[in-house]
């Protein structure tokens, strides 16, 4: 029937999505997934830099989903793609998703974002107290929205806890995704060397 009407069938396997606020550990989780053995959907246009020495694992087309650029998702079943939380609502409803949602102390996220803005020669028009309130509000609306999406399953992962001991998280992620993953390789990725934006250091 699909052939008759020229419609590409939906992927059988869920699309694996790594999400969260920017600077919440999404790139680290993407690297864990890659090391675990999953195929990553990335164009590598955004290359590694001092903010993300191991790379960003991003796909430019993700930013264009709101404009209708979603055809690439037809080939993403069983693969992993990074989609920041603000863009999750643009994921098409005809596919199913397993979402690893990274959470991190908000002060650390803001400190890391400020460093990144500086490196990009960008300035923030709004102070961090206001942005903090907005991010908290964003999280408070996205979680109820996510739990009501019948095609999305979500696992929340604490970046701060994972930095301390990644092994149990790697195991839980494998169970959640239900795919073979090399958990020992995954657990080697979270590194205290990358943990540079603790509250104490600003």
């Amino acid at each position, binding site marked *: 029937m699909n052939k008759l009407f020229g419609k590409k069938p939906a992927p059988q396997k869920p699309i694996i999505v790594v999400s969260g606020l*920017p*600077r919440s550990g999404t790139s680290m989780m993407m690297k864990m997934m890659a090391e675990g053995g999953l195929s990553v959907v990335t164009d590598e246009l*955004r290359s590694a830099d001092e903010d993300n020495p191991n790379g960003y694992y991003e796909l430019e087309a993700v*930013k264009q989903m709101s404009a209708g650029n979603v055809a690439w998702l037809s080939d993403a079943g069983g693969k992993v793609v990074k989609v*920041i*939380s*603000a*863009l*999750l*609502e643009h994921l098409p409803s005809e596919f199913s998703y397993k979402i690893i949602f990274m959470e991190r102390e908000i002060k650390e996220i803001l400190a890391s*974002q400020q460093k*990144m*803005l500086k490196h*990009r020669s*960008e*300035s*923030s*028009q*709004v102070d961090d107290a*206001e*942005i903090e*309130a*907005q*991010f908290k*509000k*964003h999280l*408070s*609306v*996205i*979680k*109820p*929205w996510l*739990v*009501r*999406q*019948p095609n999305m399953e*979500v696992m*929340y992962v604490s970046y701060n806890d994972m930095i301390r001991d990644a092994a149990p998280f790697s195991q839980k992620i494998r169970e959640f995704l239900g795919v073979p993953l090399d958990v020992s390789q995954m657990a080697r990725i979270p590194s205290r060397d990358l943990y540079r934006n603790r509250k104490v250091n600003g």
Partner: protein
Amino acid sequence: MRSIAKKIGVTFANRDLRDFGAISFRDIPFLAIGKHLDQSHIKPPSKASGDGQKDLEDRLKGLGYL
């Protein structure tokens, strides 16, 4: 939601609801029978974030994520 419903003999439990957020009495019947929650009354996050949405988007653009 599924894990709650799968537990034999449990019709409703308030554990594992940390990430549900804004849980309402309207959700309880859906939880009790293990069905997906009603989404008819919930707006997309960008529409529900209110006045601060533009500030949020400006920050994300500055970081290169939009």
